[in-house]
């Protein structure tokens, strides 16, 4: 009886180990920005079809997580919406440009805000949409966690460095933000364009300017950022090939709602 049990345990153990031991495939692991996630996922799917010997594991976690994990060499590539000045050992590979939008539940009845109004909404100075020309509806701010790259870009480009009030909700991925804003009357948040198109949310114009590709290219709409893939030191040949595959796939970048770096008429420092 006990011998059989021991045998069974050994067999189960072997069954778990065997598939990993047998395959000599390369695995590339990526984690980080949930704003960049859709592009990396789609690219990984295409790449794996073309190269069956390469396995690509992609997960989210936020830009801060991506930077931390690649710095700790836990993953091959850390995806991020923001730079990593605290980690000089990381090598930056810019893959695309991403636009972000201020999004709201359609119930708020507001199509646009001035930058000052927007800051009042997010700092909690204004608590009802009617105070900024909308419906009589309580404002619910939905934040991203502190380590979020999207939040960092938002704070820098639209909030003038002021931090958003912590009185609303905090959701830890672009996908959940979109879901919660869509379901909660009076909710407002910010999210990558790649994650929000076609979800029936109101995109709020800032100082009369909507986050269209054209406006972002020309630098009229300020909330955009380069998407970075960080490697810890020079990437291996496999990782390097995958990053080049993502960066050069213009059609996929555009289809997933990102912008091409070469189309930008301004740089980040112009903001």
């Amino acid at each position, binding site marked *: 009886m006990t011998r059989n049990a021991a045998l069974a345990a050994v067999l189960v153990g072997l069954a778990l180990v065997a598939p990993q031991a047998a395959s000599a495939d390369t695995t590339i692991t990526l984690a980080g920005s949930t704003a960049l996630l859709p592009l990396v996922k789609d690219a990984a799917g295409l790449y794996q079809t073309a190269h069956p010997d390469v396995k690509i594991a992609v997960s989210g*976690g*936020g*830009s*801060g*997580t991506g930077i*931390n*994990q690649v710095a*700790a060499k836990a993953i091959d590539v850390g995806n991020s919406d923001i730079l990593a000045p*605290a980690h000089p050992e990381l090598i930056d590979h810019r893959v695309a440009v991403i636009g972000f939008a201020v999004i709201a539940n359609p119930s708020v009845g507001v199509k646009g805000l001035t930058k000052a109004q927007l800051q009042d909404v997010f700092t909690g100075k204004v608590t009802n949409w009617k105070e900024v020309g909308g419906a009589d509806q*309580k404002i*619910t701010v939905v*934040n991203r*966690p*502190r*380590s*979020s790259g999207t939040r960092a870009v938002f704070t820098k480009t639209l909030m003038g460095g002021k931090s958003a009030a*912590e*009185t*609303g*909700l*905090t*959701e*830890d991925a672009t996908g959940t933000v979109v879901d919660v804003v869509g*379901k*909660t*009357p009076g*909710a407002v948040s910010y999210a990558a364009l790649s994650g929000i198109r076609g979800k029936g949310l109101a995109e709020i114009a800032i100082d009369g300017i909507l986050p269209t590709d054209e406006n972002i290219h020309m630098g009229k709409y300020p909330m955009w950022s380069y998407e970075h893939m960080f490697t810890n030191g020079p990437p291996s040949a496999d990782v390097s090939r995958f990053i080049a595959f993502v960066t050069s796939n213009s059609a996929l970048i555009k289809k997933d709602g990102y912008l091409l770096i070469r189309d930008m008429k301004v740089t980040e420092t112009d903001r």
Partner: protein
Amino acid sequence: MIATRAKRAHAQERIATSVLRIAAGFVVFAMALLLLYLAGEGLKLFVIDRFPVWEFLFSPVYEPDTHPGAAVFIVGSLSVTLFAICFGGPFGIAVGVFLSELAPPRMAQILKPAIDVMVGIPSVVYGWIGLQLLVPFIRNTTNSPGFGLLAAGIVLSIMILPTVITLSEDAFRSLSPTLKEGSLALGATRWQTILRVLLPSASSGLTVALILGIARAIGETLAVQLVIGNATQLPRGLLNPTATMPTEIVQDLGGATQGSMLEHALFSMAFLLLLIAMSLILIVRFALRKRA
């Protein structure tokens, strides 16, 4: 022949004993390691960053890089736990009484496996259901975001039920049958017997049930994180989004740079949770000893 068999049995005995001893020793070793590690990391905030313990425990100002006061999360943890035990506690004890004293055998046969299944359901499933059904329900009936203390409290009340039910049922079953028989023989009704005789007699066992329910509630992470709203603010009402220590740890641990004040503060919260869990267990042991 007999001698060799006895010798072999003896050898088997010795091997088995030492294997079991190693296993038991490993548990102690793992526990000690965990405690030491958490204490070492958790005290860095006070020793290296020189952040006052007082401020950590009582200041609601949470600036992760300069002033990580954890009062919001401590109050959040205590509030959801209090809510859960106020609702889940009496309800669980009631079901425990019902199961041990009143339920017809066939009904108990259905109820007990159902309760076992409740224990086995992963917490993320409770949270997910809370997010899909409870949050929209609260949102629509109260005109609030729906996320908050109330949603988290309700989910937790349900999650601690199996613990409280099972342990309180045990508490009633472990009472001597003479208590019940004597009370009934004196002419007390079944209800009087339960209320005046069985409940007071089982009180130490019921205390254990409630405390382990509290321990379950205060540490719950994922289910709470999904429905509480994760806002760094003191709860001013049941409908307010807030956060607890476990939810804050899981929310910010990925983004906390190694060696940063934020990371140290998260470790301090984990250490505090461990201390709370340990004191709860100490209270349980004390209550059990009193009963014996």
